[in-house]
């Protein structure tokens, strides 16, 4: 057999395999929702099997965590969202690389996010941040994030203020943390304190934190609009037309409560007040 014949044979076989592969996709049954699997669940086992390649293994798990969160969050509405693997993936990531700041900080935001936008597990967000604080006790950012979880997700303003105070006392902490702690404690969770916190976070160096803060500030603006709408209805006794929310989507009147609410199609959904009703 000449070399040319062998070469042509190889190309033909490869071409045939590609064609068959493409054709098979049309014949195969429709895809079903298959649950994702996590083969290694124990962080201790993962750390050992990674040998001296813990950091690169942590990167792989981090990318998997991002993909898992993104896939569930952006899945079509008929898909039942299940964020069950998020915490195990973040736990593995941070065990393999205990200094992976963004995995603690971003991970806590993911975990605390209300269902269906996230798993709605502020308890796990706290556990993750406490793990980060144990690994890097001098990192005031983790303590600040912890205070934020108490403030935003758990509405425990006393714990939030104490945690912001703890962060403010740490070396290198920015000067705005101390007044924030005071404002949080004094106002007991009023919107102005929340706005102050998010405006500080909107100055962050991290893109994701800035965009998250922008969204939260828009949610606070939406709350102001809704409050003004309710006030108008109370004062005048008539139901005014529903305005647009700050993302440009019209508000809706919730038939169950006859109250104004952010539409499900809005980028601002779910609002902090809508957490319980949408879970």
């Amino acid at each position, binding site marked *: 057999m000449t070399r040319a014949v062998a070469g042509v044979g190889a190309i033909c076989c490869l071409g045939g395999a590609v064609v068959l592969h493409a054709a098979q996709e049309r014949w195969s049954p429709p895809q079903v929702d298959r649950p994702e699997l996590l083969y290694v669940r124990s962080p201790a086992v993962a750390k050992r099997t990674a040998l*001296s390649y813990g950091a690169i293994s942590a990167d792989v798990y981090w990318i998997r965590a991002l993909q898992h969160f993104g896939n569930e969050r952006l899945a079509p509405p008929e898909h039942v969202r299940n964020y069950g693997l998020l915490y195990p993936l973040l736990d593995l990531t941070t065990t393999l690389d205990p200094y992976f700041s963004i995995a603690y900080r971003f991970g806590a935001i993911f975990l605390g996010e209300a269902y269906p936008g996230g798993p709605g597990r502020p308890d796990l967000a706290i556990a993750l941040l406490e793990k980060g604080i144990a690994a890097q006790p001098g990192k005031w950012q983790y303590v600040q994030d912890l205070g934020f979880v108490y403030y935003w997700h758990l509405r425990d303003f006393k714990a939030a203020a104490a945690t912001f105070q703890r962060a403010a006392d740490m070396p290198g902490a920015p000067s705005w943390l101390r007044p924030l702690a005071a404002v949080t404690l004094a106002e007991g969770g009023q919107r102005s304190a929340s706005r102050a916190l998010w405006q500080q976070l909107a100055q962050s160096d991290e893109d994701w934190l800035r965009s998250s803060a922008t969204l939260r500030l828009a949610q606070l603006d939406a709350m102001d609009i809704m409050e003004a709408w309710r006030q108008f209805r109370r004062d005048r006794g008539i139901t005014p037309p529903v305005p647009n929310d700050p993302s440009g989507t019209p508000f809706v009147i919730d038939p169950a409560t006859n109250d104004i609410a952010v539409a499900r199609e809005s980028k601002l959904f779910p609002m902090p007040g809508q957490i319980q009703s949408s879970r």
Partner: protein
Amino acid sequence: MNAARCVAVAVFRESIRDKVFYNLVLFGLLLVAASILIGQLTAGQDVKIIKDLGLAATSIFGVFIAIFVGISLVSKEVERRSIYPLLAKPVRRAEFIVGKYLGLLLTLLVNTGVMTLALYVILFFLARGVPEPIQRAWDAPALDPALLKAFALIYLNLAVVTAVALFFSTYSSPMLSAIFTLGIYVVGQFNADLKNFDRIVDSPAAIAVAKACYYVLPDFSKFDIKLAVVHGIPVSNMFVAATAGYAALYIGALLFGAIVIFSRRDFK
């Protein structure tokens, strides 16, 4: 030592002939592809991940070269029977062993050096155009000189692995040498566990054996400062110097051992 130099140069040339450096092309492609893709997959952690990937790939590629080229350094000469004319020349067996070792070390030096340069080039292009405030938020600058310490310790790690492979290669078949070297490499990663064996075992004899293994087996975890360097955690020059001293002594022990075994071998 002129003979050792000639043997070393021959080993280096052979590695070029065997296309060992093809892995550099693979490494370059891996880094370029990763630097393009990772920005899309991660949340602003591209520089950290590229550093992790570059250091891990340098170490993995190096370990494979050290083991799979190292195990055949002596056994291939014996199998091909090219050892007979070689030893008939004025080449002492010690010079032969040292020359073989230095030749592979030179190959690994070129390999690690090119990989270091490639990583710095990729990091330079990644960091270019990133605003200063964002760069300040990184754990360590993109073109952090401390990365060189990590590369230096990776190279020393490879030098010890090469010495282990060469040691086994002097009296064992390539297959067994590969298994032994890989075994030592893996055990060397868990050396710290041997030290703490007394926490899980009560037998004094078992504890003594574990302690002895802890001190005698190479501690490869010493050479791993990748995580610290990537996160900008300072690694003292004293630590690097002490680890280099440890590597030199361990390599010395293995090479002397290899020379003793090889000198006693009968090639009749």
